[in-house]
């Protein structure tokens, strides 16, 4: 394997090199403590050493507000929204967020493949970066290590004084061509040490979660939950959406748009006439967690949680998905027979 070395003080030069070829999106400092992905205009603003962004790269492929069609009320004509490929370098992405995109790819490709999402996905060069797990990351428990290069074209692993640069794909080689880097010194990047773990092998989680259906943990979690839906909105694998009709102020036309929705929100299951099928916060919490660890993994063999820790880090009430799952695990070990 051909490994190069990128010294920290050359990150800015690399960003400039990439910007000459394609638009670059990368983490940049926002608030005092926060980092967010944004289009790069100033190479010096890029931050590669960060714990997590509040929103993942999902926002570029399934934007929070996404036009589906435009209509004209005067003649009832309509046209599909124009969707352009992102065609950019996504720089400084963590392995769990890349894994989340695999899951979204699956959702929007299986069955009836959807143009809006898949079109935007085209032309992306993925440049990953390793990270030091903080108190919320638990990707290791779902099989995604901080050094996982799967899905990336180039991967940067943090070592002393900079990064080891691994060219993973041909595309990755092309984008780096012309940017001279020295060979990497011997010495391995840190594989990262997780502080959070799910105490069960991934392969057995489905079984445990199936048994948790009538667990008291859902009601207990509901007591602490305000039902604000933040956990859905920051989740990189949540893709649920609602559809909204917008009419312009001249009332001559408008757009049909989809907007992010979340299963923690009360109206999510409401049908015409007002019936809500998951009326309680306990049922909604259960659905959220089982969706990540059972319902969708039943179909695909992959958990729909990538261990990024966002739902926990950004929960004002401090509800931890790892604690919920571990509680289910320990209950299961005590009473395995309650399995459905």
């Amino acid at each position: 394997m051909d490994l190069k070395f990128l010294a920290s003080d050359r990150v800015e030069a690399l960003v400039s090199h990439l910007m000459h070829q394609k638009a670059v999106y990368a983490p940049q400092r926002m608030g005092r403590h926060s980092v967010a992905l944004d289009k790069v205009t100033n190479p010096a603003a890029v931050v590669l050493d960060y714990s997590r962004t509040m929103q993942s790269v999902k926002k570029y492929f399934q934007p929070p507000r996404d036009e589906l069609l435009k209509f004209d009320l005067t003649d009832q004509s309509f046209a599909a929204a124009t969707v352009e490929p992102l065609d950019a370098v996504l720089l400084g992405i963590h392995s769990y967020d890349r894994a989340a995109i695999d899951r979204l790819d699956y959702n929007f490709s299986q069955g009836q493949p959807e143009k809006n999402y898949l079109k935007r996905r085209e032309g992306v060069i993925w440049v990953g970066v390793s990270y030091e797990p903080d108190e919320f990351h638990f990707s290791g428990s779902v099989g995604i290590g901080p050094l996982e290069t799967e899905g990336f074209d180039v991967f940067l692993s943090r070592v002393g004084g900079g990064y080891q640069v691994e060219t993973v794909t041909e595309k990755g080689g092309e984008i780096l061509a012309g940017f001279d880097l020295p060979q990497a010194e011997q010495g391995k990047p840190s594989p990262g040490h997780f502080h959070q773990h799910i105490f069960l092998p991934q392969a057995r989680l489905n079984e445990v979660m199936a048994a948790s259906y009538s667990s008291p943990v859902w009601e207990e979690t509901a007591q602490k939950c305000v039902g604000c839906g933040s956990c859905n909105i920051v989740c990189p694998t949540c893709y649920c959406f609602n559809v909204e009709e917008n009419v312009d102020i001249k009332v001559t036309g408008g757009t049909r748009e989809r907007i992010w929705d979340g299963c923690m929100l009360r109206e999510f299951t409401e049908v015409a006439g007002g019936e809500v099928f998951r009326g309680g916060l306990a049922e909604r919490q259960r659905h959220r967690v089982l969706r990540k660890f059972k319902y969708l993994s039943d179909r695909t063999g992959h958990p729909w949680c990538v261990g990024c820790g966002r739902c926990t880090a950004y929960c004002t009430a401090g509800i931890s998905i790892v604690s919920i799952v571990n509680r289910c695990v320990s209950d299961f070990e005590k009473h395995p027979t309650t399995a459905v």
Partner: protein
Amino acid sequence: MAAKPRVAIFDFTGCEGCELNQLNFENQLLDMLGHVDIVEWREAMDDRPGEYDIAFVEGSLSTPDCIKRINEIRRRAKVLVAVGACAVQGGINSMKNTRPIEEVREEVYGKDKYLFPTLPALPLSSVVKVDVNVRGCPMTQIEFLKVFTALVMGKQPVEPTSAVCVECKLKENECVYERGMICLGPVTRGGCDAQCPSVGQYCTGCRGLVPEPNLKAMEDILVTHGLSVNEAWKRLHLYNSHELEGLKS
């Protein structure tokens, strides 16, 4: 719709900031006027006619005369829209409801209190049927435009029900709690695009409580963050005293 809808605008007890916000649609005002006939608007015009399709009403009800007028407006309007926190949930006026009304009157007017009749400040919905709410203090302009176009189209506008947190997370705002301040966002209805947290302020709860608020969980959040539950409750009463008094009983 064949004829243009006839629109009337009224105000009760309040600051008239929502009405001002309606005059602040400089870029859209002429388009809006193209779709409707404004037939009554005391703050902006003289004329005073009979019936109307849509009545936008600001302010809360706080005198016997208010009650008479709102019933009359309801009778004459096909659609009644409550505009702003005062009209929708009683708003800031309803803070006085938490204390005996006689005590409050005496405190302000002393022996002259009988000159000025007053009632507890009520939201419109506690006296008449309200068809649509436009929330906020002042009302949120984007929401008003949505409601306006929906009504011109003859359809029921959708009222936002999820918490302000959703919009903060969409805008990737640093959580106000992380900044060490009390924030009412977790139990306050969104739809404002998280205006206040987005510019460094905390959510003051002006859009009213979310449906079925989990106030116990909200207390836990405050305690966990080392913030005063009492102070937060006081702040929650700023716009929501009427609703909170209702939850108590």
